[in-house]
C-alpha cells in the first residue's frame, strides 16, 4: 500500500522542547482568564471515561462539549486523558500521530497561516506574541505556546503531532515569558480576530433530517443561511472586509474577521456586535423566541429577505417541521390566537397528513375566512415573520464572540472525529459548499501518493507544493487570496500612514 510518509523517518528533536507542563499551565489561574464556569463544567463532562466503544462515537460530542473552545484546561488531567486515548488499532485514523506528522510536514499551509495572523510577510509581534494551544495525541492540552515564524510553528507541530491546535489572542508580551513578568497585569490580551461559531447542535429542535453529530446537505442549509445573514451584517453594517468562513470539520462553521478595527475591539464591543446579531432568546421550553419591535430594524428586514426563500424551500419542504401533530403544536403555540389555533387544530385533526407547507398556508386561509381570528392582518403578518425568523435566523454561540481571549480551533487543522480538514468556505459560493465533499486527511495522503505514482511530478516541476497535488488545492488558494488581500490592505494602510507622516489624523 502506497504510503505518503516522507523519506528519512521522524524529524530530529530540536530546540522546541516543551517547557510548559500542561498541569502547571492549568493551575496558573492568574493568567488563565478565559475559563468560565461553563467551560469548566463542559470540560468535566468531556473527560468522563467514555462508555462508547467506537472511535467515531467517542468524538460525537466533540463539537458541543470541549468543542473548539478548550480555553480552560483545568479539569483535563493526565489520568482522564488516558481514557480518551484512542485504542483502535486502525492506523489510518485521523489522529494517528504518524498520519498527523505527514499532514503537518507536507500539507498544512503554515506560510499562509503565518501571514494571515501576522498581517505582513516579515515577522511582527502580531504573530510572535500570539498564543497557540495544542491538543496532543494523549489529549494533554498545552497553552501559551508562541512562535516567531511559520517554520518554528511547523517544526513544533511535526514534533508534537497535535490532533489539533487552537489560536488565541496576541498578548502584550510573549506568552512564553508571562511567568517572568513581575506584574501579572503586564500580561494581557491586546488583539484577536472577531470570531463567530455556528453549530448544528443549536438547530436540533428544528431540524428533522438528522440529530446529534450527524449532518446532511439538507440541514447544512441552516449553516448556509446563518453564514449569509451574518456575513451580510458584518460587511454592510460594520464595514468589515476580511472575513474568513471556515468549516469546523463536522457540522458547523466559524468566522474569523481580521480587519484591524475588529482585532482591536475590547470585550464590550465584541459583546455589542454579538448582541446586535443575536435574536432568538429562550430555551426549548420557552415561549416565543422572537420578540422584536416594529417596524423591523433594517438588519432584520434584510435578514428576512435573505431567509424567506430558504424558509419556503429548505424549511417547509425539506425539513417539514410541523408534519407530526406533536410538532405542529409548536406552530399553534407561536400563533397565539385562540380562535385561529382552534380552527387550525380542528382542520389538521380531520386530515392528519397535511404537510408543513400546507399547514403554513392553512393559516392564511383560515385567518382570511372572516371572524376566525382576532388577529389583524398586520399582526398576522408580523406573527408569521416571527415564526419564519425562529426557523431560519442564525443561532450563534454568542459567548464565543464576546471574549477577546477565547481560543478557537485553527483553520486547516483536521477534525479528529471525521478526519476532514477545516477548510475555508468561499462565501460567494456558500450554497455550493458540501461538507461531505470536504477532503479527509486519509484521502489527501492517498492523492499525493497517486499523483506521484502517476509520474506527473516531473512535468509539473520540483517546486510544486504537496497541497497542490491534492483536492486541498482550491481551499489553500482561496485562503492565499484572502491573506494577500488582507496583507495588501494592512500594509497599504501602514505605507499611507508612513507617507502622510504625522499630519494624518486618525
Amino acid at each position: 500500500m502506497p504510503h505518503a510518509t516522507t523519506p528519512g523517518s521522524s524529524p530530529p528533536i530540536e530546540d522546541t522542547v516543551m517547557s510548559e507542563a500542561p498541569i502547571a499551565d492549568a493551575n496558573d489561574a492568574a493568567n488563565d482568564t478565559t475559563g468560565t464556569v461553563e467551560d469548566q463544567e463542559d470540560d468535566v463532562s468531556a473527560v468522563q471515561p467514555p462508555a462508547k466503544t467506537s472511535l467515531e462515537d467517542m468524538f460525537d460530542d466533540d463539537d458541543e462539549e470541549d468543542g473548539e473552545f478548550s480555553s480552560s484546561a483545568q479539569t483535563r488531567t493526565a489520568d482522564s486523558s488516558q481514557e480518551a486515548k484512542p485504542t483502535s488499532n486502525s492506523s489510518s485514523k485521523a489522529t494517528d500521530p504518524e498520519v498527523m506528522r505527514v499532514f503537518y510536514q507536507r500539507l498544512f499551509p503554515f506560510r499562509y497561516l503565518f501571514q494571515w495572523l501576522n498581517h505582513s510577510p516579515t515577522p511582527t509581534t502580531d504573530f510572535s506574541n500570539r498564543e497557540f494551544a495544542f491538543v496532543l495525541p494523549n489529549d494533554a492540552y498545552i497553552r501559551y505556546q508562541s512562535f516567531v515564524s511559520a517554520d518554528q510553528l511547523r517544526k513544533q507541530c511535526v514534533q508534537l503531532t497535535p490532533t489539533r491546535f487552537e489560536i488565541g489572542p496576541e498578548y502584550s508580551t510573549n506568552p512564553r515569558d508571562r511567568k517572568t513578568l513581575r506584574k501579572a497585569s503586564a500580561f494581557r490580551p491586546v488583539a484577536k480576530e472577531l470570531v463567530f461559531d455556528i453549530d448544528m447542535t443549536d438547530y436540533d429542535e428544528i431540524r428533522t433530517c438528522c440529530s446529534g453529530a450527524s449532518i446532511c446537505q439538507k440541514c447544512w442549509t441552516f449553516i448556509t443561511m446563518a453564514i449569509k445573514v451574518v456575513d451580510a451584517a458584518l460587511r454592510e453594517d460594520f464595514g468589515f472586509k476580511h472575513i474568513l468562513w471556515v468549516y469546523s470539520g463536522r457540522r458547523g462553521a466559524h468566522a474569523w474577521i481580521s480587519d484591524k478595527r475588529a482585532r482591536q475591539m475590547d470585550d464590550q464591543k465584541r459583546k455589542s456586535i454579538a448582541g446586535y446579531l443575536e435574536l432568538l432568546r429562550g430555551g426549548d421550553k420557552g415561549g416565543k423566541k422572537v420578540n422584536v419591535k416594529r417596524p423591523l430594524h433594517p438588519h432584520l428586514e434584510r435578514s428576512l429577505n435573505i431567509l424567506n426563500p430558504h424558509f419556503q424551500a429548505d424549511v417547509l419542504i425539506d425539513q417539514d417541521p410541523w408534519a407530526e401533530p406533536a410538532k405542529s403544536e409548536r406552530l399553534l403555540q407561536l400563533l397565539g390566537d385562540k380562535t385561529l389555533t382552534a380552527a387550525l387544530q380542528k382542520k389538521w385533526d380531520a386530515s392528519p397528513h397535511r404537510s408543513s407547507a400546507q399547514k403554513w398556508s392553512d393559516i392564511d386561509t383560515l385567518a382570511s375566512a372572516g371572524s376566525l381570528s382576532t388577529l389583524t392582518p398586520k399582526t398576522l403578518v408580523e406573527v408569521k415573520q416571527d415564526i419564519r425568523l425562529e426557523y431560519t435566523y442564525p443561532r450563534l454561540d454568542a459567548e464565543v464572540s464576546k471574549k477577546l481571549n477565547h481560543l478557537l480551533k485553527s483553520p486547516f487543522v483536521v477534525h479528529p472525529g471525521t478526519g476532514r480538514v477545516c477548510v475555508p468556505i468561499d462565501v460567494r459560493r456558500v450554497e455550493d459548499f458540501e461538507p461531505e465533499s470536504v477532503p479527509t486527511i486519509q484521502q489527501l495522503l492517498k492523492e499525493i501518493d497517486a499523483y506521484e505514482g502517476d509520474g506527473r511530478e516531473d512535468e509539473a516541476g520540483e517546486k510544486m507544493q504537496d497541497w497542490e497535488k491534492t483536492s486541498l488545492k482550491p481551499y489553500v488558494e482561496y485562503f492565499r487570496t484572502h491573506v494577500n488581500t488582507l496583507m495588501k490592505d494592512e500594509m497599504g494602510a501602514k505605507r499611507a500612514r508612513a507617507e502622510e507622516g504625522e499630519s494624518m489624523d486618525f
Partner: protein
Amino acid sequence: MLATRPAARIDAKRRATVDPRKRQFAKAQYQEQDYNFRMNFYAIPPTGDISLEQFEEWGIARLKVLAELEACQFRNRSPEETAEYMRPILQKNLPLSANSSRSGSLAEERKRDHYSHWTLRLAFSATEDLRKRFARLETMLFRLRLAQDDGRERREFIESLNMDWETVGEEEKAMFGEELRAATGAWRAKGEEEGWFKVDWERVPELVEQRRVLLKKGKAYVHIREQTSMVVGEFSRQLEAGLELSARALPRMDEDNRLSPILHHLSKSFTAPDTAYSQDASSITDSTQVNAAMIDSVVKHFPLCMQNLHRELRKNSHLKHFGRLQYTLFLKGIGLDLNNCIEFWRRSFKLIDESKFNKEYLYNIRHAYGDVGGDANKRGRGYTPYSCQKLLTEALPSAGQSHGCPYRTFSPDNLIALLQATGVNDRELLKTVRETVGKQRYHIACNLVFETQHKADLKKVKEQNLWPASELDTILHPNTYFKRSFQLANLNKFQNGDIGIDGPSQEASQ
C-alpha cells in the same frame, strides 16, 4: 450656610490657589477662564485665586446640592420630581443661568460652579468609594442641568465638545429615511425633533447592542434624542478618568496644610451634608417662647436622637456628658433660654443635690450658652447645636452613653423597638427604615420617618403652597426636624396668625 458665619472669622490673609496641577506645570497660566457655556465638562482645573473661605463655602454649597440629589435617588423620585424638588435648592446653593437670561452674574455663577466642582473632586478622590459616589452624583447633576438647558444653548454646547459627530444631511436623510426611522424608532414619538448624526459605531456600543441605531459600513446613525445620554456618558467617563488622576495627585495636595483640613472636613461631610445652625432656621418664633415646663409636651416633635436622650434622662434622672451636651444645644436651638435650660436640667437631675449640680453641671450649661468661657465663646454665643452630620460622624457611644444618632448607633432590632415606643408603628415604614439603615443611609431613614408621620400635613402644605420649597427639602439638622414637626402640628394656628411665622402664613392668607 457658611454665609451666616460671623464676619470676624474671615481672615483675608488666608488665600488658596485651587490648582492641583500647579506643581506639575510650572508654566501654567493663572488666569480667569471664559465661561462661554452654562454647562461645563470641568476638563480644566481652575487657575484663578480664590480665598480659603470661598474654597470652603462653595464646596459646602455644592455638597448640599449633591446630597439632595442623592436623597432624590434613594427615594426613587422620577426625573421630573427630582427636577422640581431640586429647583429651589439649586437656585439657593448653585445657581447657573442661561446665556439668554442676560444675568449680570453669569460669570460669577459659572466660576463658582467650576471651582466648587474641583474642590469636591479633590476632596472625594481619596477612596474608590468616594470617587464612585462623587462621579455618580456629579453625573446626575450634569444630566439634570443639561435637560434644563435652553435648546439652542445645549446644541451649541454639545457642538463645542468636538465629539466628532457628523450631522446627517438632507441627502442621506432622503436616501435612508425609512431605514433611519425603523432603526432608531423615530416613528414612535410624534412631534419629536427629527434628526440624526453619525459616529463610528464603537462610540455607541450599547445602542448597537440593542439595535437602536442604523449601521452603515461601520458608521452608526444615531437619533438626536440619544445625544443627551451620549454627552452624559462622555461626561461620566471623563470624570471617572479625571478622578483617578486626582487620586494620584492627592499626596502632593497634602503638602498644602491649609487645604487639607478643609478637604478632609468636606469628605467627612459627605456622610450627611453639614447644616449650620442659625437661630431663625430652627427656633419657632417670638410668640411661642419655649420654657422648661413645656419640654415634656413638645418631645413628640423631637427627632429620634433627642427623644431617645429625653427618655434616657427621664428613666435615669441623669445623662452622661456628651448626651447632656447634645441635648442642651438642641434645647438651646429650639429657643429655650439659659435660665429655662438650667431649670430644666435642675429638675431633671432630681437625685442630685444642689451643690453637686452647681459644681459639676451648671458651668457646662452656661458654657454651652456662651455665658461663660473665653471671649470667642461668648461672642459666638456658645456652641452651635449639632447637625446630623456631626452626630453621624462622631465617635460611637460606649456603655452607659446615649448620645449620637440612634439610626446609626442602635442595632436594627433596638432601633425598631425605640421607634415603636415613640409611636411609629407603620409596618411598611419600619421595614423600609430597617433596609435604609442597612445601607447606612441614616439621615434618609430619619427623613422617611418624618415624612410618613407627617404625611397628611405635608400634603396640605404642598397643595396649598403654604411653605417655600426650601422648607420642604431634606432635614439635615435635629432642630429643623423639630421646627417643621411643630409647625405642621400647628398649621391652623399659623395660618390663623395665632402663631406668627416669617413669610408663609402671610402668603397663604393673601
